[in-house]
């Protein structure tokens, strides 16, 4: 028994690589997921590299060229102040993606923490899961709106208009979207905890936090990854929805949702103002959702049979 567990890690390295290879093969087999990956990489590249190619500052006001339809100088047209829409969509994308990814990371951190704690420590399970249920019963969008309305001025004066709103939005999205991750992680931890290698680690005198980090977390990583991808999508949608309702970022610090909100009043004059930010949100979310589907299929042991 001891021999088996002592020799297990050595060959264990090689299969773990091939498991990753397996997953990648499964992922590639999912055409939607592969297309989603390409589109997502393209959007990220466009948003971060694009400004070096299209060198127009997003906030330059040029009233003579206002409300223009797409042209070579302004591929996406201009808005009612003559700001270049392509530059604004690119700048907005940087903020939207940053908000989506940071909020997802925060939600993931919270969700994993709560999930692992309540799955691993029996005494914490009851209270933590009651708290999760409580959060799930809160009406989130109304609450987000209310929190933003009430706290934006305070934070804006404390951290400046841009950082304050960024912190606030990331924080509120993060603390209101960790519940599903927590539930999934808890279920997985419960399943992992009853397996022999955890008992072995415990009986060898390993500290609890080492067991969690070395043995439990790597085994629940797959479901965390799926919730991570889906978390980016929902965070981007939530941020755009808040900005669309006029309670998100200010218009001189545009995100895709804010651009859509500002453009909605001009949609008959220059439809491209709503088209491009909206398409950008939709494509990003769609590609991320397809990637999430593909990862879930790739990690699903039932799918390996096919």
């Amino acid at each position, binding site marked *: 028994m001891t021999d088996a567990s002592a020799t297990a890690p050595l060959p264990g390295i090689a299969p773990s690589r091939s498991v990753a290879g397996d997953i990648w093969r499964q992922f590639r087999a999912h055409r939607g997921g592969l297309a989603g990956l390409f589109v997502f990489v393209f959007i990220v590249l466009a948003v971060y590299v694009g400004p070096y190619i299209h060198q127009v500052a997003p906030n330059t006001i040029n009233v003579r060229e206002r409300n223009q339809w797409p042209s070579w100088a302004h591929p996406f047209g201009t808005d009612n102040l003559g700001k270049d829409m392509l530059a604004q969509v690119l700048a907005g994308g940087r903020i939207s993606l940053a908000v989506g990814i940071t909020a997802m990371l925060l939600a993931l951190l919270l969700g994993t923490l709560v999930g692992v704690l309540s799955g691993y420590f029996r005494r914490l399970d009851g209270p933590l899961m009651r708290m999760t249920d409580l959060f799930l019963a809160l009406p989130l969008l109304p609450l987000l709106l209310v929190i933003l309305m*009430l706290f934006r001025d305070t934070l804006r004066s404390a951290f400046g208009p841009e950082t304050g709103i960024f912190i606030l939005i990331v924080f509120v999205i993060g603390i209101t979207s960790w519940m599903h991750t927590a539930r999934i992680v808890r279920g997985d931890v419960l399943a992992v905890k009853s397996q022999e290698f955890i008992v072995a680690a415990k009986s060898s005198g390993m500290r609890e936090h080492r067991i969690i980090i070395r043995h439990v977390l790597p085994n629940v990583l797959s479901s965390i990854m799926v919730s991570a991808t889906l978390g980016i999508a929902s965070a981007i949608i939530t941020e755009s929805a808040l900005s669309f309702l006029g309670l998100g970022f200010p218009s001189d610090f545009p995100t895709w949702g804010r651009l859509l909100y500002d453009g909605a009043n001009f949609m008959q004059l220059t439809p491209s103002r*709503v088209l491009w930010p909206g398409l950008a949100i939709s494509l990003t979310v*769609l590609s991320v959702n397809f990637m999430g589907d593909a990862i879930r299929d790739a990690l699903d042991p039932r799918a390996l049979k096919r």
Partner: protein
Amino acid sequence: MFTYTLRRLFFAIPTLLVISFVIFALLDLAPSDPTGDLPLTIPPEVREQIRASLGLDQTFLIRYLKWLQQFFVNEPLNLLESLTGWQFGDGERMRVLSWATRSPVVDLIVQRLPQTLWVVGLAYLFGILIAIPIGVISAYKQYSIFDQVGTFVSMVGYSVPTFFTGIVMIVVFSSYLQWFPSVYDTNLRVTDLDSLWLQVKQMAMPVAVLALYNASQITRFVRASMLDNLNQDYVRTARAKGVKEKAVLLVHVLRNSLIPVVTVVALGVPTIFSGAIITEQIFRVNGLGQLLITAVQGADIPLVQTLTFIFALLIVLFNLIADVLYGILDPRIRYD
């Protein structure tokens, strides 16, 4: 089952109390002053009187308990009185008053409820009616063209946010083709066929946007649940003993597959009320969502508190209904 329901109902009470406390505390502890928007020329003592008239001179706990009494005792009694015509006491009860309009919050909600129920409820119903056949056919013909197109469309419908589909529909159908009005007219009374047609026209776009979104979500559930059931042994048994394919699919598989779908549909009902905030905003439907937005923008704290709590109440209630339904529909589930 009955004791389970009772136990759940019993547990719902502390949950709701905690939620109401959280909502109340969150709104109350926020650094905002309801008299902050008033002109600076108002003398401080008058300002204090205004604060007292809003009930702000009391401590936090007293205000919370009073709100609880108003919401859970006074308002239901009022509702009962107006419904049955009975009289309880002298009928002089403190009601939850909106700061902006100075009218009872519940009256405002009752005014806005029909629009939301019509537009959003109808959209939910249409969503379910579209989703079930598409999900069934997609699962039955897995990997066929129909399935691939259906899965892709449902993914798109689920990913594209409603505020984008709504705006695109307004640009195409309202400003370019001019088929439908882009603003919902609440004053329209349906008296004859013409006004009915107008009503249908103004409801078409918001209902379509929301129905598409709901349908794509539910389709995914129906398809997954059907796929789970189609591979079960009982399906093979039914086919082997010569049951017609139509009966296998529609009687055996569909009925079993709809069990989880029913609970998902029940869980989604609260979003009818709160989730349509954005759609109502785009099409200017003055329903509950718009009431909430105007209340949030106007810092009308009592209205926001009450509306948010009603949404939370609906979520807790429908969670319970979903669990109980699951137990009733699926005899394999035993809670006791």
